[in-house]
């Protein structure tokens, strides 16, 4: 371990609340699902809501258009925060809300902050149709008939070309993720059984080289998540605190083509589609925590395709660039005895509730020994990586159940 920042483990998550809805439940809105999560988190923290000085939200969820999303949440909570804003960076912003909240409590501007996200978009809008229009340049990309997989496939094709990655190597990620999902009660694929590499290779081609089973599945519903945070010295044992050891973010572009016009700055010293901002974000997070990938017990990432998971394993430092295929092929993320990776099944098999904080929720539950799926044995540190498409914006946070440096 190297030297760490004064921010390391200085902030504690002291309350977490979620609300899960599926298409079998009465249909509720993104506003409702987030409010349920907020109230559950405040109750779990055991504080009076009027003690909350900071409210950090994701951007307006899909299927619920509101120009001032953060104000809608504040308006419903009936509190008067000193600091409140939405973090717009797609899915990465969802995790980054915790970073802003941590800085606010560490600066002493507020004592308690709440971060919330969540979306029930799949219950209200056609996600396949809508999502590509959010993730593409509407003048220069969308008119050609792009889908979300077709945008990510631009990265996949180039990555596989440069590093000679085979579809069967990528397929292993889908196979391993599925095993975790089968044990998780909220996973979209929990009743769908195991899959094989052949199943992945035989699934329908969506946008070459991406097949159906290389892709995340839209969650048939939505999940609201909220956490209450404060300074570590204010946390009480009964709140089961989980500490923020390090965090970092990196936004490289909004649209794919423009990523190719970025150069002279990490992670694009030269234009490329093979190293994402996850690398930069992770570098910041590890430096703050004074940790290396070897110190991490669990990894949760929100990337939605097999190739992007392989790139994430490289960019987050678990293997070298271009060696993800060996890492995965040699059992690096084996469900049985590899690095615990996407322990609820990940986006591929848990499913993708848009704007969800559920991958961080999974990490927190694991660190508290309260996993609802398979519990990893005595984990101390979890790395969470959230991203917004198409691999445009990244946030990394390292969480720990151990107080102090």
């Amino acid at each position, binding site marked *: 371990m190297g030297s760490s920042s004064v921010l390391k483990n200085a902030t504690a998550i002291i309350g977490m609340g979620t609300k899960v809805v599926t298409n079998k439940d009465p249909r509720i809105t993104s506003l409702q699902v987030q409010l349920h999560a907020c109230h559950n988190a405040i109750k779990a923290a055991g504080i009076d809501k009027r003690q909350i000085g900071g409210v950090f939200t994701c951007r307006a969820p899909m299927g619920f258009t509101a120009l001032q999303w953060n104000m809608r949440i504040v308006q419903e909570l009936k509190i008067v925060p000193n600091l409140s804003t939405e973090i717009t960076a797609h899915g990465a912003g969802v995790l980054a809300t915790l970073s802003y909240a941590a800085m606010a409590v560490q600066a002493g501007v507020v004592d308690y902050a709440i971060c919330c996200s969540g979306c029930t978009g799949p219950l209200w809008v056609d996600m396949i149709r809508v999502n590509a229009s959010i993730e593409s340049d509407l*003048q220069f990309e969308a008119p*050609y008939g792009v889908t979300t997989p077709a945008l990510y496939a631009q990265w996949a094709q180039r990555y596989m070309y440069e590093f000679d990655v085979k579809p069967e190597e990528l397929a292993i990620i889908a196979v391993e993720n599925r095993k975790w999902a089968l044990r998780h009660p909220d996973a979209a694929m929990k009743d769908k059984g195991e899959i094989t590499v052949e199943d992945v290779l035989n699934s329908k081609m969506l946008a070459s080289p991406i097949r159906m089973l290389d892709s995340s599945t839209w969650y048939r519903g939505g999940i609201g998540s909220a956490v209450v945070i404060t300074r570590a010295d204010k946390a009480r044992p009964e709140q089961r605190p989980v500490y923020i050891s390090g965090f970092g973010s990196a936004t490289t572009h909004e649209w794919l083509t423009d990523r190719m016009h970025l150069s002279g700055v990490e992670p694009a010293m030269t234009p490329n589609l093979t190293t994402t901002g996850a690398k930069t974000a992770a570098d910041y997070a590890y430096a703050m925590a004074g940790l290396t990938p070897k110190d991490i017990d669990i990894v949760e990432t929100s990337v939605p395709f097999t190739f992007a998971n392989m790139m994430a394993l490289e960019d987050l430092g678990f293997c070298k660039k271009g060696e993800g295929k060996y890492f995965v092929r040699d059992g690096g993320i084996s469900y049985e005895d590899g690095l615990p990776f996407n322990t609820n099944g990940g986006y591929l098999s848990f499913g993708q509730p848009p704007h969800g904080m559920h991958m961080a929720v999974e990490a927190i539950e694991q660190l508290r020994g309260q996993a609802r799926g398979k519990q990893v044995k005595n984990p101390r540190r979890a790395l969470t990586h959230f991203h917004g498409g198409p691999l445009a914006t990244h946030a990394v946070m390292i969480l720990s159940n151990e107080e102090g440096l």
Partner: protein
Amino acid sequence: MEATNNNSVESVQDMTWAEGVPLMAGQYMMGLAEPSPETKDYWQGVKEGRLFIKQCSGCGKHNHPRRIFCTACNSDALESVEAKGTGTVYTFSTVYRAPVPAFEKEIPYSVGVLELSEGIYLFSRIIPEKGKEVRIGAPVQLTFQETGPNGRLPAFQIVG
């Protein structure tokens, strides 16, 4: 966003602020996709069957047609210039599931990032040679083709 599905392109043309340059993206994206002041020349060129990109009159660097400031020298003195229309395939995907019904009759089609001879990258349709597949590094030549609900758009044909 989805509520715009039933509107026609014509009905919102008058509402754009791009001096009558029509909407070019699919109807499902209307209201978001107007040509903007910095891309008017590009869309005017498309209408005439020509491809305009930007060039910096300060340092000479070519830029993507939507740039407002030069990425090399940060000057805003960008002029529209006609591209040679040649380049190579940097990456691509062949689409088998269309985003909206309007594209279904074209499936499968390839979309991807081209590296133009001027050194900029452009997203477009890529048309393979007959009976062949698109491949990274293949040389391409500008053409125009009817694309989904959007009329004639720049596309690139693989040559040789």
